[in-house]
């Protein structure tokens, strides 16, 4: 299975959304503790019926701790309690108001409304928490406010909406009302350039994190789009990997002999990103089947 999105619940547990090929059924949301990778439970396993997921793309928590899940196969948004209990789902295929054509990104604003990237319709739709369609913005194209197969979305602390405009190789920023504000990025592999950005995340540290999907890296920007840092992956063996190798010494030997220790650390098609109050950055390393975690200075305590 391939992790494509990751979110922290307010209780500190980590929710990891995985998908696979359409014909493979390794689909689920797994819930783990972020400190010691303790598996807790899973839900939204493969299926097309309510409460299941087929080709899920993104998820986010609302202020009421409900989890919203986008599925580009069933063309729906599903709603779960944080314990995985299924509540409802809405959506249908189409291009009219309130319809979807492959929803791919999802984020909740401070009021609890949902913004859904409706990628083949080249627009972003706004929904109330109970599934009432409120508004939409965006058309297909390369101009400001236009999209070409957009994917990820994030909402900052001022409720500005940031979109990973995937095939336009740029990040676009919009006001809470959907008015274009700014954009940065172009096609390429230099600093500040992208090759199909899959995800954008407004970090708690004020930085903008972008999964530069086909460049296999995560770039870090400030809010005016100035490049600050590039992460290429620094993975160590997870606890689960180490346990696997401990009980499979033959494969541990293959790993030793391969001479690929450095390559093993790198990202391969990074996707969803999350930041925690403790300064941690969680990155779904989708083709390496893991979450890479970086540690930054924690947020200053409120006084």
């Amino acid at each position, binding site marked *: 299975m391939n992790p*494509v999105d990751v979110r922290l619940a307010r209780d500190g547990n980590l929710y990891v959304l995985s998908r696979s*090929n359409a*014909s493979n059924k*390794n689909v689920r949301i797994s819930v783990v503790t972020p400190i010691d990778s303790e598996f807790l439970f899973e839900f939204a396993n493969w299926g097309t019926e309510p409460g299941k997921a087929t080709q899920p793309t993104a998820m986010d928590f609302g202020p009421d701790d409900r989890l919203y899940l986008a599925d580009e196969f069933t063309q729906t948004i599903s709603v779960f309690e944080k314990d995985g209990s299924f509540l409802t789902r809405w959506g249908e295929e189409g291009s009219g108001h309130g319809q979807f054509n492959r929803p791919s990104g999802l984020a909740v604003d401070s009021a609890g409304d949902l913004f859904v990237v409706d990628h083949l319709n080249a627009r972003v739709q706004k929904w109330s928490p109970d599934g009432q369609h409120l508004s939409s913005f965006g058309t297909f194209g390369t101009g400001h406010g236009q999209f070409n*197969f957009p994917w990820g979305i994030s909402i900052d602390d001022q409720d500005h909406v940031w979109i990973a405009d995937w*095939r336009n190789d740029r990040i676009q920023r919009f006001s809470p009302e959907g008015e274009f504000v700014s954009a940065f990025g172009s096609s390429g592999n230099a600093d500040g350039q992208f090759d199909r950005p899959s995800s954008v995340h407004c970090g708690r540290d004020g930085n903008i994190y972008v999964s530069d999907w086909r460049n296999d890296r995560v770039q870090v920007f400030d809010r005016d789009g100035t490049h600050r840092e590039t992460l290429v992956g620094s993975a160590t063996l997870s606890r689960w990997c180490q346990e696997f190798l401990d009980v499979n010494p033959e494969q541990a030997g293959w790993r030793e002999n*391969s*001479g690929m220790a450095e390559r093993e650390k790198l990202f391969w098609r990074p996707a969803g990103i999350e930041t925690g109050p403790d300064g941690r950055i969680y990155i779904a390393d989708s083709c390496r089947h893991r979450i890479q975690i970086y540690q930054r200075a924690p947020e200053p305590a409120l006084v």
Partner: protein
Amino acid sequence: MTTTTAATDTDTALMAHLLRRAGFGATRNQIDHYLEKGYEATVEELLNPEYGEPEDQDLLDRYFIASTEARSVGHADPQWSWRMATSPKQLEEKIALFWHSLLAVGGIKLDHGMEMLTEIDLFRRVGLGKFRTLLLEISRNPGMMYWLDNQNSHKDAPNENYGRELLELFSMGIDQNGEGAYTEDDVKAAARAFTGWASKPTMPPFFLGPFPMEFRFDPEDHDERDKTLLGETGNWNGDDAVNIIVQQPATAEFISRRLYQFFVADEPDQQEVRKLADVFTENDGEIRAVLRAIFNSEHFKSEEIRFRKVKSPAELVYGTARLTDRFDLPDMDTSQLANYAMFMGQHLLNPPSVEGWHEGEEWIDSGALVERINFASSQLERTDAPGVEQMLERVRSAGDSLSPREYVNACLDAMGAIQLSDRTMNILTEHAAGQSIHQDQRNRATEMFQLIASTPDYQYC
């Protein structure tokens, strides 16, 4: 089987024949497009695809994320399926299919979907070029080295697998009596030439997914002594062995025969094969030159060659998929196409043995035939598909005063200028005569498309 000419002109039928053999077939509109180019210009376009990543590769990777890092054949399926169902460079995919069966690597043993896709891409990249280049590259292909155990071939204990298959199955072949134009000593010499050639140890894929396989040459493990291969003596290595092998008349004959069987007819015509072997030799083993000679020959163009070759499952599945023209975005159905081919007996990326698949009539048994008919019929039932819509429009525009025979011919033309035997034609004409004139015309045409796809004739290309 005698054939009844459909309501198409000679050029149209010939162009359709070319596109069925050099590719997976074409819609009637695509045939018109190529007719404007002309036959020989179309042959040249087919023979000279510009190698490179398709424009929609990013979309494919995004939707089928597990195929990007395909750890198994099952994960890799959508990547090749998509190309066979949609690539405008049809011969690039068809030649990959040809080499996939001739230079076969089995996916189950390799258990590395990513490497299988790398091999298919190798066939796209050099499969129409010099056979020498292809054989050199496949001999350095880490998947092939692993598949045929060459990592176990050491200078003091050569493993003969690769040397044997290189001569017997990949280049020179054997006759009906199991005799080749080489000896057991040549097999031993070839094996010694390839000692030290292997795949590098790679990461186990079980916890982080696959890592690219890499070729490794270990000079310390290579037999540096003289070897006599096919009458030539020297301190040969694998490159030298390939250079000696590709110059053999038996290689020209064997490769030409296999190309003939794949692109022309299941039963080889020896006289034609000899002509092709001469072209192979005169052009330093360039596959493109041999195929050009095939497609431009009067023998290939003749009526007697058409609809005599049993479609492989891949040809049936992807040919029908192309007819529907409905694969404009990767979706669940894309990955299902490979499953349909597997149900019909061709598990792509996982040939049954180093011999590849046995082609021709062996494709058909009662179970496979049911799968073929059900699949083709179900695809052509999809009137929302652009290709089926085009077919319906063509039949509608043929007029509403057609005789039953003319009606069947209009349907055959709409399905890509295909033809039927007299017997099948008569049965379908009788059926058309029995159809109610009050029947919905779309339903009537769709029913006829499905009937045509269910005939024995549709199993041939």
